[in-house]
């Protein structure tokens, strides 16, 4: 689905200024293209491209997927060390529980959901956010007794800067039309299956059951939906344009964090 597109590598040949001729009088310094760069000698410029992927995206999920080309792979590692949050739009359905938490799985149980109101859902979401906020502070491995920890906590900048279990930094309900509902989730170090499990657990907390119908990533670190290329735009010009536009954003984010 989201694999790299297959495009023909472009070949371009550049004429390098030639090194000076060895030799004695009578020779003129002429700029001659180096023979080693001649296309017939060197062959095609790009035979293979090194393309790396950013954070994983499931087969059943969709959304922004970051790829790095060439030098971009090193930037990808740096971006991973920044531990930035990602935003997902998660759609769910009340009344069903399946074994893999999505609506295409094997049915486990059906329950009623007419007692669920938007207010109850928001209450559960507030509690999830609260416990995850606590986990955020605990996994960040900062000594809570220092003044710096207090100041970072006031600004809200405490984040786990190493490995940690998935943490949700923000969650809210965008739409609620029983049995369907849609949530916006800001999270760190997560997998899409974890988000589906969260939807299932929300259903359990509300004394009913829920399955996840849609997981869509709308932001991955600094890359939003506006920067992402559609399937129709998977051609060389748009890719080059997109890389050019994102360069500045990536540089500022890396400088800010590292």
């Amino acid at each position, binding site marked *: 689905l989201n694999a790299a597109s297959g495009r023909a590598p472009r070949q371009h040949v550049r004429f390098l200024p030639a090194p000076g001729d060895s030799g004695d009088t009578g020779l003129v310094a002429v700029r001659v293209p180096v023979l080693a760069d001649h296309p017939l000698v060197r062959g095609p410029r790009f035979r293979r491209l090194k393309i790396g992927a950013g954070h994983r995206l499931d087969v059943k999920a969709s959304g922004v997927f970051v790829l790095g080309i060439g030098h971009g792979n090193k930037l990808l590692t740096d971006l991973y060390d920044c531990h930035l949050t990602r935003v997902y739009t998660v759609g769910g359905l009340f*009344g069903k529980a399946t074994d893999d938490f999505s609506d295409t799985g094997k*049915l486990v*149980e*059906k*329950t*009623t959901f*007419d*007692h669920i109101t938007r207010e*109850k859902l928001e*209450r*559960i979401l*507030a*509690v999830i*956010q*609260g*416990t995850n*906020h*606590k986990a955020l*502070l605990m996994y960040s491995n900062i000594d*809570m*007794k*220092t*003044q710096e*920890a*207090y*100041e970072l*906590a*006031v*600004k*809200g900048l405490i984040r786990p800067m190493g490995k940690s279990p998935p943490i949700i930094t*923000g969650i*809210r309900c965008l739409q609620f039309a029983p049995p369907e509902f849609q949530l916006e989730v*800001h999270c760190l170090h997560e997998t899409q299956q974890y988000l589906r499990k969260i939807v299932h657990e929300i259903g359990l*907390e*509300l*004394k*009913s059951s829920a399955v996840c119908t849609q997981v869509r990533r709308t932001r991955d670190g600094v890359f939003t939906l506006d920067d992402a290329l559609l399937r129709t735009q998977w051609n060389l010009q748009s890719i080059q344009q997109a890389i050019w536009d994102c360069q500045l954003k990536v540089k500022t984010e890396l400088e800010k964090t590292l």
Partner: protein
Amino acid sequence: LTGTRPPPALRRGLAKAAGPRSVRQLREAEEAAPVFQYAGKAAKRKDRVFVWGFSYSGALGVPSFVRPDAGWRRPRRIQPTPYRLETAEKISSAACGYGFTLLSSSTTDIIKVWGMGLNKDSQLGFQRSRRDRTKGYEYVLEPSPIPLPLEKPQQTRVLQVSCGRAHSLILTDSEGVFTMGNNSYGQCGRKVVEDETYSESHLIHQLKEFDSRVVQVVCGQDHSLFRTKKGAVYACGWGADGQTGLGHYNITSVPTKLHGDITGVNIIQVSSYGDCCLAVSDEGDVFGWGNSEYLQLASVTETTQVNVPRHLPFKIGKIKEAACGGTGNVVLTEEGNVFVWGYGILGKGPNLIETAVPEMIPPSLFGWSDFNPDIRVAHVRCGLSHFAALTNRGELFVWGKNLRGCLGTGRMEDQYFPWRVTVPGEVVDVACGVDHMVSMVKSFI
């Protein structure tokens, strides 16, 4: 000749086709599945009580912490996280004293108040021992009913309870205030009797003479404050730090009205836990008196004992609620900001140890952010050396000295800035004691 057929049970059923079911069959099976109902449309939210902190005194009300049911189990000295306490009725008011707890319900049944914990001064009334009918219990390990000498027990309701160091006050709606416990400083509102033994005492004193109905009772360490409907404040008890606010440093054994800067002011809330007292008026002003050794009243006076209520001219906005601790004070303004001052771990990091002027705690520590802009602190409470704040979303934040696990965070270290306590429910109210806390919680659904 027909051969004998094998019995049908052994034969493989050929009626059903083998292999994966088609989409249509799956859909039909799904529609035919039974629907379970776990909660109906009119399901009510349940009321629960959670306790945590030091348990050896029995103040948590769980006997298995002190005397385990199985012989090989060890007693649990500290309960570091909230633990559910089963109660017979819905608890409307709770108060934590120094090693004991009182729970009260606004029911019209005969039993309205339960007490547990230390009872060496009969602060929980007389708890008849089952082994010896003439003696009483010194430590009460589970919530035991306190018999009150009411005239109309099936009509009077208990509004509020309050606990001090060794005495307790119970406020009813039509029969005044009942006081029990230690009276060596007159804090129970009756005359001090020389060499009185307070343990195993049956005496419960009733106070009725005030200018109007008493609407709030507050216990300090060894004194009592009463707030009446007309906005006046009465005090009795120990006064060596000026905490009775009556203009002298002696003991008062009869509740007497306070004057000073609160004369004529309609007071809407009084608070005290140690030896300092704060009162909030309906116009948002705060008045203080009592001990000022920890800079609690240093903004108006240099003396360390203030025995007349003084107005504290803080320019922080209209004040809605105030709470006094042993060494620090906290107020909540109308906008929902929390201000702390005094001495100790005040909640602004380890560098802020003492201040005489209120400092605001940033709302982002209570969960306020661009993502949640409408989170506000709704109530503030104070224990002896720790603070608690409740938000409008029902979350409980605690900070301060973690004496024997009283904060409930699960860790034994002191907490220098507000930290969330994970309670499985929406916290409605919380009572802070010296080394334990009690919270009234509503379940989510």
